[in-house]
């Protein structure tokens, strides 16, 4: 079984995916990741030259709705906030992304 990625690569992908992983999780996931890539690499055996990719099978395009307000789907503020762990003054509290200099 070929080794496709190392722990450092998986760590990079995990950063892209915003997944906080411990060192031991990273190690076991790297192994699982490798095994999965072996399975999906099978597709390289198929000749797909000039085959148009399919992204959805409905055949529908540009499904529009009228530009009107649907009040039945509007949340009052307290409902919108009702499942948040941290709120303040009617706002969601977000982890800081800026630091004080």
């Amino acid at each position, binding site marked *: 079984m070929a080794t496709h*990625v190392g722990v450092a690569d*998986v760590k990079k*992908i*995990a950063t*892209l*995916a*915003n*997944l*906080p*992983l411990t060192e031991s*999780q990273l190690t*076991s*996931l790297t192994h*699982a*990741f490798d*095994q*999965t*890539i*072996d*399975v*999906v*690499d*099978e*597709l*390289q055996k*198929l000749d*797909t030259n000039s*085959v*148009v*990719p*399919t*992204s*959805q*099978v*409905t055949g*529908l395009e540009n*499904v529009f*709705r009228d530009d009107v307000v649907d009040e039945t*789907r509007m*949340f009052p503020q307290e*409902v*919108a906030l*009702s*499942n*948040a*762990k941290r709120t303040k003054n009617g706002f*969601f*509290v*977000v*982890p800081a992304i800026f630091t004080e200099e």
Partner: protein
Amino acid sequence: MLLDQSITELSSGLQKKKFTSVDIVTECFANIETFNPTINACITVVDKTEVLKAAKKCDETRTPQSGPLFGIPFVMKDSYVTKGVKTTAASKLLESFIPPYSATVYQKLLDAGAILIAKANMDAWGHGATSENTDFGPVKNPWNTTRSAGGSTGGVAAAISSRMAVFGIGEDTGGSIRNPSAWCNVTGLKVTYGRVSRYGCIAYASSFDTVGPMAKTAEDCAVVLEAIAGVDPYDATSSPTPVGKYSQAVQSSKKLTIGMPKEFFTEGLDHDISVRIKEAAAVFTTLGHTVKEISMPSISYGIPVYYLIAPSETSSNLARYDGIRYGNGRENFTQETDRRILIGTYALSAGYYDAYYKKAQQVRTMFIETYRKAFSECDVLLMPVTPMQPTKLGDIVSDPVQNMLLDIFTVTHNPVGVPSLALPCGLSSDNLPIGMQLTAPMFSEELLFSLAHEFQTNTDFHTKKPKLIE
């Protein structure tokens, strides 16, 4: 037991006042209280007083015009938002999430008078085929509690099998309705993509996900589908194709040509499963249908196609779970979910997109052509649901490759969009249920119902119950 009766029988009995909705619901709770501690099918059981109140109200307001689902109790896979009722997707990440709105499928069932009794356990986010990838403990198979009930809709299948409810709503992205239906001896339908609105369905792979009924019979599934199908302005992928009178489809007795793809009947297939399906094929022949072997060559690439596209779509869909507006942090994802998010992120990333995601979507086009060609030679396809019998708990879940291969017979239907019905076709020599699946062209659910109903009228596999509940 009242819960052995079909929806049509129960509806008729309720109209004739032979029994009440309160009677049916009381039986459900007795079975939940007796069996759920062992089977673990339900994550959240709706408050008994509330449910009995709803049942009593149905009994008091029932008219001769009340529909077939009026006063009938059901369970829902815990991946559907139900306003005011905790919804978890079987993940610690959503362990205390109370949705402020309801899925369209749930609202339609409430409008039809049906009564929600529980939210069912599952593989978290739909990621699995054994209902072991859950933060709420595995679902045990009522037929043998050392074994898996299948997945990802294991809780619903186990609940119907152990008579905790009359019917259920599952979700199928790569076999998640069909696999547990086969392993728990119930009937379950993966609908045509777009047949039922996905609004309020916690998304796994948005171009594969389908919402579908699970029950004791194909006729029951048809009755439920008639109530839940249809275009929805809240789901732009839902189809404007008119909803057929599916409950009437069971009356048709057209003779059909049934194709069995030879690529799915190789040595990898469990011997008992192969035998039972071939016996079922013989039953169809006796009933006047034509059964023939066909070839569908590219479908043996189903697993790599599925395990590139589905993780890619799920890596995107699960990005919303940031623990800010709702739920807990992303460290709460299980290893299996982490694996799928990582593979998906990688397959979509710069430098790998063409070789992985785009390649898979090209092979998806080839699958569509393969199915089109198959349906030019026959009306319906017959194939296995799983390559093996219900696995022992713990055997599969830590082996990513074995875990993926469990889906081998169910993963091509979702990329193509075709409907497929899983139904019981006998027991193995270990007394474990075996299911088969019937597949039809898009929007041809009527064919599946009529053929399956004819099979179930002439056999009794679907009536067998696990010893646990006898």
